[in-house]
Structure formats: C-alpha cells, structure tokens
C-alpha cells in the first residue's frame, strides 16, 4: 500500500473544496479503513438484538467482520470473527446463540467471551499448549461501549471515550430513546439492505443535503402532487404519499430550518415535516394515547422538552444516520471505493402504542426500501455522481455554498440555514483530521 505523507493527505481537503481522489482512489479508501474506520467508534448493533446470554449477531467495523455477543455474564463483547487456529470464520450465519461458539473447520470451541474451551484430540499438541493463553482466544475488539443500548466498538486501543467521541450529538441519541415512555427502544426484525456503486461518503453527505430534494426527488414530489390533485386526497393521503410530497419544499422553506455541524464530524438538521400523520403536533387518538403515556412517564414539562428537541436526520461520523421522529437508523457500510451497502433498521418505542411502531415501519420502508420512489432516485444519482467523479477532466469538488456565514453553536459546533454546505465541510474537516493523524 502506498504510504501517504501527511501533507499529501491534507492537500486533498481545502476549506471550501475537496479533491475528487477522496472519492475515487482505492488507496485512499484503504487508508480510510485504517485511519477512520480503524479508529472511530462504529455502531455494531443494539443490545435488543441479543437479549439472551450467548446470543450473537455478525456485524462489521469497516471491512472487518466481527461478532457482537452477549456473554454468560450478561456483558456485551465484540470479537473478531476469525478463528485463532487457522483463520476460519467462526460464526457463519447472520445470527445465532448458545453456550459455546464452535469453529466449523476443526472444531475448536470457545466460550461466550471468546476464550478457548478446548480442542479436539488435545494430545496432538505438546504439553505446553495452554488454552487459556490470550493468543488461543478469539480476539476481542479493542474497545466496546454503549449508549442507551446502542453498542459501539473501536478497533483502536486508545483514543477518546465514546462519550467524548459523540460529544453533543449524544443529545439526539438520547432523544431517540427518550421518545419511548419506558426510555428504551427495541430494534425489530431484519434491516432493509441496499447497495449502490458509489463511495460511502456520498450517502452521508446526501442525507443532509437540502438542495437536492427539489431536483432529485422532483418525480416523486410531482407524482404525489398529481395524485392529490386528481383525487383530492390531501388530508387523508397515505403517510407515504405525504412523505413524497414533503420533499417538495422550496429552497426558501428549507432555509427556514437550520443545520448544525460539530467538530467531530457529526451533523444534524432540524425537523421539517408538517401536516397529517407526520406532523409533530398532530391530533389523533393514537398520538393522544402516546402523549398521555409520555406525560405519565416523564411529566408534562419533561415531555415538552423531549418533543421540543425536533430533529430530522442526525449523522454520527463516519457512517451512522438516524431519525429520532420515526425510529429509523441507517448504517452506511463501505465495501470498496465505489461500492457501498446501507442497512436500514426500525425500532419500537417501548411502552408506546403499537400503532406508533406501525407508522415507523411505514416510514422506514417508504424511505429505505430499494424500491422506494425516493431512495431509488438517490441511489441512481449516487451512481452517476461516482461516474462523474471518475473523470480527470475536473479535479475539485466545490463545497463553498454559504461558506463563512455559519454562526457558533454549542461548545464546538456551527449552525446555518439548511441549504448551507456546512455539513459537507464539517465531515470533510473530520476526514482530514482522521486521515492526517499518523
């Protein structure tokens, strides 16, 4: 692998522009896996996926295949999914459970903490063979911490704690869970899995790009408007149709909401949906029931503060995107410099009426299915975007929209009108710091 010197990396990201190699160069991608995905805290799952001791799921940190497992002691660990014997993948299905993990290749058996319990026919090894030795165990990922049930892992033994890493964006993760009367969410079912032929950063940037919907999503906006005009269905329109329609915001309307970036590369945008079932202040029996349960759990004051923290997409750098209002969470999984998978999950708010969950299921399906009228256009654009970036004809990507007009926000953040390219500059600033640190 090419050794990049620090100045070469730093020269790829200027305050208002980025070199196209950041999105197209396989060696840069390899370095990202080492310096960003190898160091940052990466979401590996949610504790509700593995409720019982011994339960595990296969997941990943960058390109590393790992297993998130609940130990016999109840603690959650993240292990490299690689047998210490000769390298076999130990956990092959997507999920499983039991008291032991047994390697399919030669039957070495491990406990739920990854420690070797024994090997078949131990007499084949010399007396000095000690199953208790660390090198005989499945290797544990360096650090694991969780926040409100969301399990993060870092491949780096040293670095900021999860709380330091998240900084103020942890407010929105709290808000995600506080919206449950019991203060907890539960990940339900399998995710929707999408893939596109483009760089992982394109998806992150796009989810906080408020200029694109009016162009990219014009066909679904106008299809929804056409349907509403033809049937007079505005008020009673299906939830999904309301969502398509909501992308029809004008740029001035977008600018009435704000977008925020933190030094760590995390970004969030204010909520913007109005009307119908997606209205935060809607009046319907289900929502009234939900509010009553929230008020009982938290008291009126605290409930108002929870609902008042109204955000839309929230990004945790480098690859996590979630929506607190509709219990949606996306993990952006880089595959190669020009291939990315996205897994989209839905959560149940514990203690809320079940219909709230059905609304979330519909939201997540509408916005994340590979057949979504909204997402299909985004994915199609990412692929053409990647093609465009492959051209050497122009070297730089411009990120100067509303540059310098942001105002300070929180301890280490900035905010501006939602049409600003502040989020892209924020994420590229973090990229440059991770990538330049030897």
């Amino acid at each position: 692998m090419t050794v990049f010197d620090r100045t070469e990396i730093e020269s790829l990201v200027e305050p208002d522009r980025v070199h196209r190699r950041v999105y197209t160069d396989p060696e840069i991608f390899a370095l990202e896996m080492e310096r960003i995905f190898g160091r940052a805290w990466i979401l590996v799952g949610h504790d509700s996926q593995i409720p019982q001791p011994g339960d595990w799921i296969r997941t990943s940190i960058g390109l590393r295949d790992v297993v998130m497992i609940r130990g016999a002691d109840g603690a959650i660990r993240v292990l490299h999914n690689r047998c210490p014997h000769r390298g076999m993948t130990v956990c092959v299905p997507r999920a499983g459970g039991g008291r032991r993990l047994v390697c399919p290749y030669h039957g070495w058996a491990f406990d739920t903490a990854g420690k070797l319990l024994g090997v078949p026919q131990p007499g084949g090894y010399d007396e000095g063979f000690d199953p208790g030795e660390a090198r005989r165990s499945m290797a544990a990922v360096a650090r694991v911490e969780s926040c409100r049930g969301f399990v993060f892992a870092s491949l780096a033994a040293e670095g900021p704690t999860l709380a330091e890493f998240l900084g103020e964006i942890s407010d929105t993760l709290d808000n995600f869970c506080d919206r449950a009367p019991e203060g907890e969410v539960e990940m339900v079912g399998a995710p929707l899995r999408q893939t596109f032929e483009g760089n992982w950063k394109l998806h992150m940037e796009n989810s906080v790009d408020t200029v694109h919907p009016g162009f990219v999503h014009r066909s679904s906006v106008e299809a929804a408007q056409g349907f509403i005009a033809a049937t007079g269905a505005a008020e009673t329109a299906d939830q999904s149709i309301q969502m398509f329609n909501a992308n029809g915001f004008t740029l001035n309307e977008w600018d009435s909401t704000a977008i925020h970036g933190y030094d760590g590369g995390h970004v969030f945008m204010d909520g913007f949906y109005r009307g119908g079932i997606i209205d935060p202040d809607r009046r319907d029996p289900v929502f009234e029931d939900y509010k009553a349960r929230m008020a009982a759990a938290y008291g009126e004051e605290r409930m108002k503060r929870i609902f008042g923290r109204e955000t839309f997409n929230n990004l945790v750098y480098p690859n996590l995107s979630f929506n607190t209002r509709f219990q949606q969470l996306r993990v952006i999984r880089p595959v190669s410099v020009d291939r990315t998978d996205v897994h989209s999950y839905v959560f149940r708010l514990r203690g809320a009426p079940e219909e709230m969950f059905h609304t979330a299921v519909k939201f997540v399906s509408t916005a994340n299915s590979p057949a979504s009228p909204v997402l299909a256009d985004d994915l199609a654009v990412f692929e053409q975007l990647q093609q465009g970036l492959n051209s050497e004809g122009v070297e730089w990507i411009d990120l100067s929209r509303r540059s310098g007009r942001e105002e300070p926000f929180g301890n280490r953040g900035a905010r501006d009108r939602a049409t600003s390219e502040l989020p892209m500059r924020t994420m590229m600033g973090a990229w440059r710091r991770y990538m330049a640190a030897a």
Partner: protein
Amino acid sequence: MSGVLSSAGGVDALLRLRRVEEFLFHEARLIDERRFEDWRDLYTEDGIYWVPSEPDQDNPADRLSIFYENRALMDVRIRQLRHGAFWAQIPPVRTRHVIGNVVLEEGGGDAELRTRSSFVMLEHRDDHRRVFGGEARHRLRPDGDGFRIAWKRVDLVDCEGTHGFMSVPF
C-alpha cells in the same frame, strides 16, 4: 402425485387452471410492456401488492417491506414511472417475465381463487443485467370472464439480500 388430472373435477378443473394461467401471463405481459395503468387496473379497489423483505414475514405492519402498496401508492408509482425526471428510470428498464409452476390452492371458496406460481424476471438497464425470481401468491376474484387481483404477494428468493434500486413491480 396429486394435480388437476387426478382431481374429481377433471376437465373443468383443467380449464379453470388454464384460465388462471392465462391471466397470470397477461398480468406479467402488462408489466413487461410497461402498460402499468392497465396492470394497476387488474387490482380490486382494495387490492394490495406486497413484496416482503423477510422470507417468513406474516404481517406487513410490523416488518419492513420492499413493496407494500395499495391502489393509491400504485398510482403514485405509475405517475413517477411516467415522469420525465425519474432518474432511476433514465434509461428505463426492460423486463421479461417467465411464469410457471402455477397451482391452484385450497381455500378462498368460490369468491376467491388462491394461486401459487414461480417466476423469473430478467431485467436490463443501462448495461446492467439482473435476474429476479421467486414465488408469487395471488388471491383472484372472478370478474366477468376474467379475474381481478385482490392481493398479490411476491417472495423473492433473495428478499433478505442486498439490492440495488428497483422501480417496476415483479
């Protein structure tokens, strides 16, 4: 082995099966010929088109779906398919279905015929070729000489797999 030829109904059952097959072939042809409005009009007013994202999914309300559309959502999708700026369809896909293994199932009574069939759908778009396939289940209501679709569920063999964007029904 059981089948129409060994069933009590004999020739009548065979003719009924053939009518159902011809209807399913017709439905597939409407999609392949991009006659989407005609395809939608095969559905009853309360008709549902469903493509689950998990193999044994039994409730569309509490699991994520790839498609779960009533007539209203079909209508919006078709308006989008007709829109000049639908980027996922520039250029449009070309598809061709092969339908087989059609069987009539018990249940549903006279008011509703239940069928299972297998399908393969070839798709080409912009130098990308894909093959989709799986099982379709239909609930058909007799209507004049033909049928209308009250419910159609498509179980892709790779429903829980990773998919690129898609925009036409199977």
